[in-house]
């Protein structure tokens, strides 16, 4: 049992923190948001240069063979800095599909472009009525010759507006909510029949609603078994949830830090408001919430190595419950303790609150995951 980082992991953390300290203060972030597409190609290039985009890929695929702990280190740092660039969509999710399910040809075709930063990806999964159920897929993929024809609508596809390639879930057989008959397809974003309506999201990212109308792809587009890819999807989405837990811990940590700083400097009634016990105890409760979230983020990260898929999924769901509870408390109280200033776009704190809130509602909220843990028979 060991919770310390290895020497290599410590160096990785220093290098990510260093990079983001230098290039990602709140003012810089505003500039990146204003760039075309809503994030910075320059920053993306720097992430590639430092090898961060290649982190989880095996050495034979040109990566560094890093694991869940390394991804968590990067995501926590990105949470602290409120990074806008599509690391989760491209490296964690698309990279995850390629690593866990991709053929040698698919890996060779796509991983180098992720690692060198030349291409980004988006995960087109959510549908009008699917909510958090990964097996609820109405988009269809019908066999045509050796390839497939995809029809359907996908919503709130993060980085969908900018991505070069979409990863689309589609039903190849069965009824709308069957576990069997779901495939995962690589679809070039500029393929004929792909319509994209982009928009900013509440937390400053960019997403798109995507229509797929008679989109034709070859047999090589299917990742894994086109008839039975739900387990692959669940695996990758668990990776994404775990990464978002770490991101949330980074964002909560920074929210708490910034709130404590504010309590020390803001004066009312002639004294720093941090001298008032009501506010001190609220901040102490925020600390407790962050530490409990950090523990469960570590739990989910280490669960990536669990052999038993069901145990892994339950661990990740439990982590998402704790993170959801903690982020709501920390997010809301950060605003409360900042008072009026916390209500302004000008102040950084509100942007943490918004990102945290969107994390809660991505890939299953607290209630959804509590039900999953319950259905699995609990943790004890």
């Amino acid at each position, binding site marked *: *049992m060991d*919770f310390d980082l290895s020497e290599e992991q410590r160096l990785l953390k220093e290098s990510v923190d260093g990079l983001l300290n230098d290039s990602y203060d709140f003012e810089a972030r505003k500039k990146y948001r204003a760039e075309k597409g809503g994030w910075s190609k320059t920053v993306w290039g720097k992430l590639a240069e430092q090898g961060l985009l290649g982190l989880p890929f095996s050495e034979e695929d040109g990566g560094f063979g890093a694991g869940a702990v390394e991804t968590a280190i990067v995501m926590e740092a990105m949470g602290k800095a409120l990074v806008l660039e599509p690391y989760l969509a491209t490296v964690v999710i698309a990279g995850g599909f390629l690593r866990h399910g991709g053929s040698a040809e698919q890996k060779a075709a796509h991983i180098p472009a992720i690692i060198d930063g030349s291409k980004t990806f988006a995960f087109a999964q959510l549908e009008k009525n699917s909510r958090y159920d990964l097996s609820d897929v109405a988009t269809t993929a019908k066999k045509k010759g050796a390839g497939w024809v995809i029809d359907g609508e996908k919503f709130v596809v993060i980085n969908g507006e900018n991505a070069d390639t979409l990863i689309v879930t589609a039903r190849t057989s069965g009824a709308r909510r069957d576990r069997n008959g779901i495939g995962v397809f690589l679809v070039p974003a500029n393929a004929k029949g792909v319509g994209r309506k982009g928009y900013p999201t509440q937390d400053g990212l960019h997403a798109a609603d995507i229509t797929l109308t008679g989109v034709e792809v070859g047999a090589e587009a299917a990742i894994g078994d086109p008839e039975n890819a739900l387990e692959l999807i669940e695996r990758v989405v668990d990776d994404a949830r775990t990464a978002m837990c770490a991101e949330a811990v980074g964002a909560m940590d920074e929210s708490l830090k910034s709130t404590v700083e504010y309590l020390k400097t803001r004066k009312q009634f002639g004294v720093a408001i941090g*001298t008032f016990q009501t506010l*001190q105890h609220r901040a102490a409760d925020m600390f407790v919430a962050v*530490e409990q979230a950090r*523990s469960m983020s570590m739990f989910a990260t280490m669960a990536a190595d669990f052999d038993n898929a069901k145990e892994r999924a339950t661990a990740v769901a439990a982590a998402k419950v704790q993170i959801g509870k903690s982020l709501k408390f920390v997010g809301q109280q950060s605003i409360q303790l900042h008072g009026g200033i916390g209500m302004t776009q000008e102040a950084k704190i509100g942007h943490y609150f918004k990102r945290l809130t969107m994390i809660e509602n991505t890939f299953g909220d607290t209630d959804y995951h509590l039900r999953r843990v319950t259905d699995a028979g609990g943790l004890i």
Partner: protein
Amino acid sequence: MDLAFSKEEIAFREEVRAFFKDNVPPDTRRKLQEGRHLSKDEMVTWWRILNKKGWGVSHWPKEYGGTGWSSVQHYIFNEELQMHPAPAPLAFGVSMVGPVIYTFGNEAQKKQYLPRIANVDDWWCQGFSEPGSGSDLASLKTKAERKGDKYIINGQKTWTTLAQHADMIFCLCRTDNNAKKQMGISFIVFDMKSKGITVRPIETIDGGHEVNEVFFDDVEVPVENLIGEENKGWDYAKFLLGNERTGIARVGVSKERLRRIKDLAAKVESNGKPVLEDQGFREKLAACEIELKALELTQLRVVADEGKHGKGKPNPASSVLKIKGSEIQQTTTELLMEVIGPFAAPYDEHGDDGSNEAMDWTAQIAPSYFNNRKVSIYGGSNEIQRNIITKAVLGL
């Protein structure tokens, strides 16, 4: 980072588990599971079994009878002990006064007291709180006046846990009225059979008798019963309170109680099916289990940190343990109340000695719920814990 225990640690866990299985008297185990109080004899019998095995004072230095275990081994031992369940060693002797004596006491005191603590030849109680000094402990007034080779002690202590069983007390007494309040306190130990001591029971809301008032009326104590230096008692008290950082979370206790909740909820019906099949109840249970898992991980972080970097600088996460640990213990007793519903009502008039076996054991559930309100009050109330986080961690 690695969550798994090593092969050696797993083997150790098996060894500990097997020992408990073979050696904890079955009646003692059952009574604990049912939330009944144990008699003095039952507790002492078990502690002597533990001491004979060499595990009575496991965390003490080897020269005084400790085991030399790693932090992780101590964690495993406590966890298994709480889950079996078996009575934890008497904290007042083993975790509190023992370490103060081997750290600050002289050779004669070590020789005189330590072996007797380990074998519970003396039952110790703690004389800290006073009617006017709870969270503000340093304001305590009990006086020890030096007269020749004796201290004359006058005053009153309260919340003195199991003083009715005690042979010895360690007591914070004011020895200098003129110094700043923390500076004039001394750490003195003495015989509970001394002339001038009166123990009066306090009945708690569950009907139990765990705590007492203790009155001192010109109690004469030899000066050699002073531990360490005169007027340095506050430092020793802080050392004592800071000693048990991780046990306080009582993760094993809550785990055991959750298992009991599930057992009982599978037997009690509501709307024609077991309570355990009620979705709302199941979700509450799962939510509690998640909180407990988070706490367990937080505790393991602290344990691993101590193992690697020593106990010198406490991990900031350790202050989380008391707050969450007590909240979760209280939640588990609430869940038990919820399971038995209207059958929580019957009250066992025979009190808390657990001798009335005729009474259905569900009679202990409401008292246990009432009694567990104490866990967020004692050992530094949860509000005091928040003050500690505020100052020591957040720097406010």
